[in-house]
């Protein structure tokens, strides 16, 4: 199908974009990479009066900023751009690893990091990654800027804290301290599909291999990225040995309450979550062991 009628706007300055959003509010949508919005427009699942294309905005919105303490990904950074950057792979291997599971190169060439976050599909990879990385979401409107944590940004299926007149300007994460490892594990029916379930984990290990902190987040099993706090508590203070991995499996299964759909039953998704958490933490253990052999 073809999109319904809308007025297309291509502001050159952020202020202009924010003024348009303020004026048109919930009759408008922001177009970044368009890889989720355009299908919805083509199928008329979304019908809007105004389309505000931010792709012509200047102001460095298309380049990640790698600072001493933090990494910031502004609104127009394409997924493929991050995937191809060796600097980003060194700084945020969790993100690089997860991007390989985001659809296909043809989609990632246009799709943006922030666009995927603002779309907030519960089975998408990037919301869980940013939750695991404890990202800060910088939101702008004509009235000012505010910052939210992932837990306050993702509200429900395809629903975020973004008001109609707001835009997700950038997302910022702290650089991971030395001794912090990360892993992303996903299972999808076909490569490039949305995950049946996925797990993003970061884990800080001391020289003896004892976990001093971790964040474990599941995708595809709840309306928003779900932190597996029971797993996190179980891991903290322990070595990632096989006995712990077995306990983790049980804890993860007990902690999620997924729904059944045409792709997988709730029981299957629950078991899958346990398996993926185990795989992610086993991956972390392997990375830590490799780092200490060197």
């Amino acid at each position, binding site marked *: 199908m073809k999109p319904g009628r809308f007025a*297309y706007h291509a502001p050159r300055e952020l202020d202009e974009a924010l003024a348009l959003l303020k004026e048109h509010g919930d009759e408008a949508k922001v177009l970044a990479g368009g890889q989720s919005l*355009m299908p919805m427009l083509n199928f008329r699942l979304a019908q809007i009066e105004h389309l505000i294309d931010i792709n012509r905005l200047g102001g460095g919105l298309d380049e990640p900023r790698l600072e001493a303490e933090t990494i910031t990904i502004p609104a127009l950074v394409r997924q493929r751009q991050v995937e191809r950057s060796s600097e980003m792979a060194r700084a945020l291997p969790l993100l690089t690893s997860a991007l390989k599971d985001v659809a296909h*190169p043809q989609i990632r060439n*246009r799709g943006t990091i922030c666009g995927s976050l603002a779309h907030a599909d519960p089975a998408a990879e990037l919301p869980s990654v940013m939750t695991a990385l404890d990202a800060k979401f910088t939101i702008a409107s004509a009235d000012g800027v505010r910052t939210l944590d992932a837990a306050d940004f993702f509200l429900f299926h395809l629903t975020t804290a973004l008001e109609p007149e707001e835009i997700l300007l950038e997302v910022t994460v702290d650089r991971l301290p030395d001794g912090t490892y990360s892993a992303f594990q996903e299972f999808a029916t076909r490569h490039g599909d949305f995950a049946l379930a996925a797990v993003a984990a970061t884990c800080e290990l001391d020289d003896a291999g004892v976990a001093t902190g971790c964040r474990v987040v599941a995708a595809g099993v709840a309306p928003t990225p779900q932190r597996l706090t029971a797993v996190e508590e179980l891991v903290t203070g322990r070595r990632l040995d096989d006995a712990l991995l077995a306990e983790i499996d049980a804890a993860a299964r007990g902690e999620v309450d997924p729904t059944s759909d045409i792709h997988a039953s709730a029981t299957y998704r629950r078991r899958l979550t346990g398996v993926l958490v185990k795989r992610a933490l086993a991956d972390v253990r392997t990375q830590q062991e490799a780092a200490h052999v060197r």
Partner: protein
Amino acid sequence: MSDNQDGHRISVTVNGAVREEVVDDRLTLADFLRERLRLTGTHLGCEHGVCGACTVLVDGDAVRSCLMLAVQSDGAQIETVENLAEGGELNSLQRAFQRNHALQCGFCTSGFLMSVTAALREAPIRDEERAREVLSGNICRCTGYTGLVKAVLEADAERKDTAR
């Protein structure tokens, strides 16, 4: 630029030729190529970015032309399947498709050719796993993909031979 009742004037380079056109707000790049420029080699299957039949190159990157608006292509360089043949002859990738029965009905073929063209420019495709990864963003309902995999590997080998 906005709220333009008379459409948007764009200048876009398609297969090496500059085209100046006026386009409606909601015209997709795919429909612009097919209906305005009559480049009907680009096909439309699902129109929501899943099947890959409409894949074209925009500034060198393979993208879904059904998920881009024509107005967004202002200033861009676009390559379509019509640009692949060299002097009226099939290029090496197209010949590899032909030799290996990488198509049957042909509906998906232009999308596959453009995806593989972009991938081959970026890096060699030496093994089946990589070939399948490159092909995974397009859907073919006839071939079962075996011929496509062979064609991609052969096209890469041929490229190396001519590069020597």
